[in-house]
């Protein structure tokens, strides 16, 4: 007795194709939103967690682990204190330490952070599954006034190797204290990595030191003006840095070295494990992320409620049709299944269209999202988590379809085959 139902369901939907299409589209939009949020969430988390890898310890002045990670890797906020160059050199000299990359922050270029570091940065900075930084063009900085720009900085301002840029004091978007007497020359442009490095200008520690020689307390010393040529004669070795990335010879020593740095006698220092701290930071972000997911789930609920409303509203005018089916020998159970099948098919079509919409959206908006916000969106087949969400949507659609089905069942029991309307 399946055949008459399929046939009737299909013809009935085809007859109401405009309403059916609108219903399917509303469910599809809701599903696309839900899956989109889930994918964004997943990919953001992946991108987040893979911002830094291969670094065993991050060292900075004593503050909180999350703060240290935020300002040194994500360039969010500022350090409250620095690490003295002496300590950095002593840590680098520890027998367990394989390499150390110092980071000096505090200046910016047109809203992008300027990072003072050594050329070891290009050798040791790793992201994702151990990817290293690669040059799209040019080479690492060598001279004091040479700079390497991240992919996004280059893309935003159209920078190429050979151009000259000016660094501003402070990290704001609008800074008026320009180090315009000592411009830098771009010698390298990095490939896109999806990390904060894309949004950075990298210079040598000596470069950072050089532009601050004639500065004190965030302003130019009055009457002191040391030219770019003249500054090279100064001792440009740094006095302090903001943080340092540390790689160990053996990962088994990580807790021992961490404890050693945390108990540093010369000054209060903090060493953290980037992976564990990323996880901790993500837990903070996760609240917002869950709220976002909850809102999209609500949107799906609204979409399904719309579906139920449309099918239930159509039932009034279909009572006659249901009575005819009863007279022809349809059981109330078959009437129930007819309506359930109809709503379920609409829900299913909504899910399928939703997946298609999402694929199109990812294909169209993905590259833009990646350039604008450094959020890489993965195209392709839904992930396991997305399938689970789809399953939940379908289960909800199934539950929702029971509402019109139950009403139709009641109608057909009450009306029988007599048509009283």
């Amino acid at each position: 007795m399946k055949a008459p139902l399929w046939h009737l369901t299909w013809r009935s939907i085809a007859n109401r194709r405009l309403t059916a299409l609108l219903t399917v589209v509303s469910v599809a939009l809701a599903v696309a939103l839900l899956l989109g949020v889930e994918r964004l969430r997943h990919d953001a988390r992946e991108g987040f967690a893979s911002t830094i890898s291969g670094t065993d310890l991050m060292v900075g002045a004593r503050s909180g682990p999350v703060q240290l990670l935020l300002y040194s890797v994500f360039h969010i906020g500022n350090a409250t204190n620095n690490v003295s160059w002496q300590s950095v050199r002593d840590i680098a000299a520890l027998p367990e330490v394989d390499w150390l990359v110092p980071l000096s922050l505090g200046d910016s270029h047109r809203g992008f952070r300027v990072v003072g570091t050594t050329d070891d940065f290009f050798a040791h900075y790793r992201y994702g599954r151990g990817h290293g930084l690669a040059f799209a063009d040019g080479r690492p900085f060598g001279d004091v006034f040479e700079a390497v720009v991240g992919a996004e900085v280059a893309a935003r301002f159209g920078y190429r190797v050979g151009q000259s840029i000016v660094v501003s004091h402070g990290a704001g978007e609008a800074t008026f204290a320009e180090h315009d007497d000592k411009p830098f020359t771009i010698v390298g442009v990095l490939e896109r990595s999806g990390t904060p490095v894309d949004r950075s200008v990298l210079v040598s520690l000596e470069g950072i030191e050089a532009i601050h020689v004639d500065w004190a307390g965030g302003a130019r010393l009055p009457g002191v003006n040391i030219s770019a040529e003249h500054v090279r004669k100064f001792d440009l070795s740094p006095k302090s840095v903001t943080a340092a990335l540390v790689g160990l010879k053996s990962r088994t020593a990580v807790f021992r070295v961490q404890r050693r740095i945390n108990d540093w006698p010369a000054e209060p220092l903090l060493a953290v494990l980037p992976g564990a701290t990323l996880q901790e930071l993500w837990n903070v972000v996760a609240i917002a992320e869950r709220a976002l997911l909850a809102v999209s789930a609500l949107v799906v609920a609204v979409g399904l409620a719309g579906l139920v409303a449309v099918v239930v509203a159509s039932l009034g005018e279909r009572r006659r049709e249901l009575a005819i089916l009863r007279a022809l020998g349809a059981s109330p159970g078959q009437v129930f299944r007819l309506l359930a099948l109809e709503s379920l098919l609409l829900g299913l079509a909504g899910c399928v269209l939703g997946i298609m919409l999402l694929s199109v959206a990812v294909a169209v908006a993905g590259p833009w999202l990646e350039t604008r916000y450094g959020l890489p969106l993965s195209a392709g087949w839904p992930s396991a988590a997305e399938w689970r969400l789809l399953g939940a949507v379908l289960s909800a659609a199934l539950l929702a379809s029971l509402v019109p089905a139950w009403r139709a069942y009641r109608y057909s029991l009450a009306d029988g085959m007599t048509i009283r309307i």
Partner: protein
Amino acid sequence: MSALAPPAVDLQGIRFAWPGAAAPCLEMAAFALAAGERVFLHGPSGSGKTTLLSLVGGVLDPQAGRVAVHGQVLGELRAGARDRFRAHHIGFVFQLFNLIPYLSARDNILLPCRFSALRRARVQEAGTTPSAEAARLAQRLDLDAALLDRPAAELSVGQQQRVAAARALIGRPSLVIADEPTSALDADRQRGFLDLLLAECADARAALLFVSHDARLAEHFDRRVALGEINRVGGGA
């Protein structure tokens, strides 16, 4: 029909009251249709005609008494079996709005064959296919073959009633119940439709229970019964 065939309809000692109603709306000692008999059931509106038809169709259960169709006591069947029994043995034509609007005329005629394997089988026993049988019935009922592919909603009332008649007759049910099928037609068309229906029921050897308030239509039937005479509840529900 031979005398051995069970009566198409056999009602004994029926009493039926709508739920919540104090008085019964239908109470009758006996009413029967022999196999192949064509009976005109006459009654003013509200005399319990529709209730009687629902009892015969097995959609309603009488509080007392026995309803048998084609020899089968409906009260002995469970709800689902009764629905299947109705699909197998009874064809209905209503006053108006007989058709599923979004199906074509042909699909409407074929619906009983979709719901009842038995009626499908009877068509095949006759050496034809449901679709060919639908076309044959349509032709007999003066329906243009081109109309069969049109959606039911686009047909005129007269055409719809003929499609409904074809649907009631396909697969040779033993009983056709017509509930005021001609009241929406003008006098000329009433005549024509009635003739077609009577002829086709005779051809299909189906009993016909024709219900109407219009006594003028009664002359072509084997027997005429006034519902007021057999229903002991005066005035009906």
